């Protein structure tokens, strides 16, 4: 009985030692891949940062309003954010590819699905970034147009434009990621629909006079008659 236990223990130990000996070089290979991956990702980051500085990416982002968004979120400059993002994606991809060398079937499946997900994550992040830029740009354009046309509550108009684009961007981002597609679609439809309905009711009930005046100005003969200040041409 004792001999049997000792023999079984010895067998288990030798199997463990064999498995460990089998795994150790692979573990070492993973570590080497991770280190090499880090070096590659770091070099790519440095290269990308130099290229972005060369093409004055930060200045372009500043013009588009991205820098202000990042400042608000206490993030570094756009070129820094982008190069960091690329660094992590490259390193993570190489690292995960290395982990699959360990030969653990369950892990391999998970890693494969993560690797498949990474490009979508990158696209979704780019979409989110561009969408927020667009929201900022069009909100400012709406604000300027409303102020220069002497429309009432220009900030409300600007905010509505911003919210609509942000909501649209978020729903598109989630759709790209494949997360709660239906929920997001329904939520977007509800937000958009209720916003439009709210605006229609507000304009119809609250702004009847305004609507009448606007339509009169637009289509009646009064439109051709200049107001007093129209007598002065800026040019």
């Amino acid at each position, binding site marked *: 009985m004792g001999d049997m236990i000792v023999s079984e223990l010895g067998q288990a130990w030798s199997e463990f030692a064999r498995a460990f000996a089998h795994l150790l070089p692979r573990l070492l290979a993973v570590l080497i891949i991770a280190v090499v991956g880090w070096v590659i990702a770091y070099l790519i980051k440095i290269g990308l940062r130099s290229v972005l500085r060369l093409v004055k990416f930060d*200045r372009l982002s*500043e*013009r*588009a*309003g991205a820098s*202000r968004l990042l400042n608000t979120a206490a993030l570094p400059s756009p070129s820094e954010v982008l190069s960091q993002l690329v660094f992590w994606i490259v390193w993570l991809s190489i690292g995960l590819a290395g982990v699959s060398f360990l030969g653990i079937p369950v892990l391999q499946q998970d890693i494969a699905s993560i690797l498949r997900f990474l490009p979508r994550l990158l696209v979704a992040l780019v979409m989110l970034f561009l969408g927020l830029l667009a929201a900022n*740009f069009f909100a*400012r*354009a709406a*604000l*300027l*147009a*409303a*102020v*220069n*046309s*002497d429309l009432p509550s*220009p*900030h409300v108009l600007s905010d509505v434009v911003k919210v609509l684009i942000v909501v649209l961007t978020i729903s598109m981002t989630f759709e790209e990621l494949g997360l709660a597609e239906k929920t997001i679609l329904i939520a977007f439809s509800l937000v958009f629909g209720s916003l439009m309905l709210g605006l229609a009711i507000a304009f119809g009930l609250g702004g009847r006079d305004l609507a009448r005046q606007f339509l009169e100005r637009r289509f009646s003969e009064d439109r051709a008659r*200049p*107001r*007093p*200040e*129209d*007598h*002065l*041409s*800026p*040019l």
Partner: protein
Amino acid sequence: MADEDILSDDLLRQLMSVGETDILVGIHTHNNAKTIGRVVQAVREGLLKHFPRERVAILNVDGGSQDGTTDLVRAAAISDVGDATPFYALRTLHCISSQYDSVPSAGKAMHIVVAASDLLRVKACAIVAPESFEIQPDWMNRLLRPIYGEHYDFVAPVYSRQRFDGMLVTNLMYPMTRAVYGKPIREPRPGEFAFSDRLVSDLVGHELWNQDAGRLGPEVCFTVSALADDARIFQTFLGPKGHVDQGPADLVPALRQTVAPLFWSMEATFDWWNTIGVLQALPSDGPEYEVSMDPVHVDLTRLHQMFTSGVTDLQDVLRSIVSASTLAQLQSAATNEGNNFQYTDELWVKVVYEFAASYHRSVINRDHIIQALAPLYRGRAYAFLTENLKASKDELAMHIESLCQTFERQKPYLLELWTAQERGS
């Protein structure tokens, strides 16, 4: 777009049938049926009267008029001027009409006229605005003679205006151009002007045609090119300028056509203007400042209200364009009205220079910078009107001269702002 591509096959055929020409008059039209007949007739009469021996052509470039403008041009061009006047052509006066197949664009039309001038090897080319219903046949002589007979390169007009008409010109375009380029061009955005073959060869392949500034305000780019090219410039008095129906809603397009091209042109010509310090007088053939003292109808309250609401609503946008101290002064100005309103020349010049530098640095979208200037201009217009409502013609001229001097005095501030980024500050 290559210069040969800007001319359509049909226009090219017409130009080739005309052949080499001494004088070309370009008219860009788009739904100008109300005034174009009168304009073409005056141009034709002026050319027949003053240039009977020269090879002359009129080129109408139309942006797709729907009101029969092109028919009116053709009718006016073939009508027998001899019936009304004693002038007869010794040569055929050609009238070419061409429509370009895109949205109306002053830049594209001007590019076509310049390319046609280059192709026909014209010695002098004049541009006439289609809405200039006050045009006289004599304008052709005043615009073209200095170039054709006296070898000037650029002839800019001086108009007689209603005293508060064109405040964007008198309060920004004229003083700023004068301060930056050191030459007192009264109308930096002329409706009518003329230029020589030398300027044509400089401008025909210019990059301005591919830029928004060139597309929207080619006249300003022309003027600045002449200034920066050290061209021989002459100013000619044309008389009253017809009223252009531009009200508050049209202020933003007006800024896009004038201020944006000026700011853009300043970038390309920085090496030229940053060294200019002394004001050089320009030769002219008439009064340099002429205004009529007709009564004005202005809603000052609305002007002030649009300035106040603009400063309040655009606070965040303005913060990224002007300095904190300038914004604070604007906000302070927005709280007062009437006699207490404080929008000094110094503040206005500071605002304009800071906008120019922000445009240069593209701190936000450039068109947004131009749009954000509109309420601040309204504030300036309100201040100028309240200060000068009872001013005489001489007092008005004095106030404008004083503003020009403020622009000149503060030019080092503009240079400092302009070069701040290059210095890394």
